[in-house]
């Protein structure tokens, strides 16, 4: 008899007052017969995100939605670690709060993991069945260029390195996160590359990525320099 799986969904938030409510609704809509909990790690949002989370707790139950806030912006990596400490599931999903990661793909992550026994299932935007919307030519060009460069240098074994919509076996996430030191999206790259180097079984599922519907995007120009530095770091240390 298979042991029942529980999924802890960690969602870091900063000023996602409206989006977090929408995401929570959609998670509950698409994960009907699944044992899960949502852990919201809010970094002291000034827009009242935490108040909305408390309202959601009244609707869905405090045992299903955990609010584990922090006093201020302390970074993505530590947000995951913080959420992990409170996770009671044996699997952990990490996703963004801004609706670019649609909860409707959660069943396909779970299914893929059950079918293959993988330790990590990562969402990829770059294969058939996946895709993006709301990216202009420049954005697609930089994304593709960055991806080719990373593939050539790192041989990572996954098609989407910077994606952050992933399902991890909890023990695997704990193992990898302790050895990662980067910040931001380079952190996402470091996690998946280190996992690949350690020989963990990684599977991919196609996901669609609709760019920011509500709220402002946090992507800028100096990102390119950060990215190259990150690649160099990963090249030498993994």
């Amino acid at each position, binding site marked *: 008899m298979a042991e029942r799986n529980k999924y802890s969904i960690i969602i870091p938030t900063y000023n996602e007052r409206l989006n977090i409510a929408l995401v929570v609704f959609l998670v509950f809509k698409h994960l009907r017969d699944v044992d899960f909990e949502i852990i919201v790690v809010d970094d002291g949002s000034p*827009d009242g995100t935490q108040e909305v989370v408390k309202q959601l707790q009244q609707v869905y139950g405090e045992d299903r939605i955990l609010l584990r806030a922090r006093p201020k912006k302390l970074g993505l990596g530590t947000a995951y670690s913080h959420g992990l400490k409170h996770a009671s599931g044996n699997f952990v999903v990490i996703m963004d709060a801004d609706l670019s990661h649609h909860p409707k793909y959660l069943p396909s992550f779970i299914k893929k993991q059950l079918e293959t026994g993988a330790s990590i299932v990562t969402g990829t935007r770059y294969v058939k069945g996946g*895709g993006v919307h709301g990216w202009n030519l420049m954005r697609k060009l930089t994304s593709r260029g960055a991806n080719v460069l990373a593939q050539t240098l790192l041989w990572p074994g996954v098609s989407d390195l910077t994606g952050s919509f992933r399902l991890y076996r909890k023990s695997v996430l704990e193992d990898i996160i302790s050895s990662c030191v980067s910040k931001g999206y380079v952190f996402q790259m470091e996690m998946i590359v280190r996992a690949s180097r350690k020989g963990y079984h990684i599977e991919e599922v196609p996901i669609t990525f609709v760019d920011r519907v509500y709220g402002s995007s946090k992507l800028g120009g100096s990102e390119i320099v950060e990215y190259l530095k990150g690649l160099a770091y990963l090249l030498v240390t993994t």
Partner: protein
Amino acid sequence: MKHIVKIMTLLVGISALWFGLLKTSMVPSSHTLLLPIYFIMCLGCYGLLMVGVGLMRFPTCPQEALLLQQDVIEAKGYLKQRGVDVGSE
């Protein structure tokens, strides 16, 4: 083995091959000396090709934006009824 070690080993192997070709002069040295340049050019062209092909075949999903809008409307309706503040930001 660390990844960088793997890459270095590969490069050293290729360099050894190149030196070998220079020494034995099976191929005229004028050609051999240019081989690294050709190699880098090929690598560059391959990279550009991959970027170009990837760009052309970049999967897009315009219908997803519409579906998302529908989801948002449904979510707002449900949550508003239950006392969650979903007013616009």
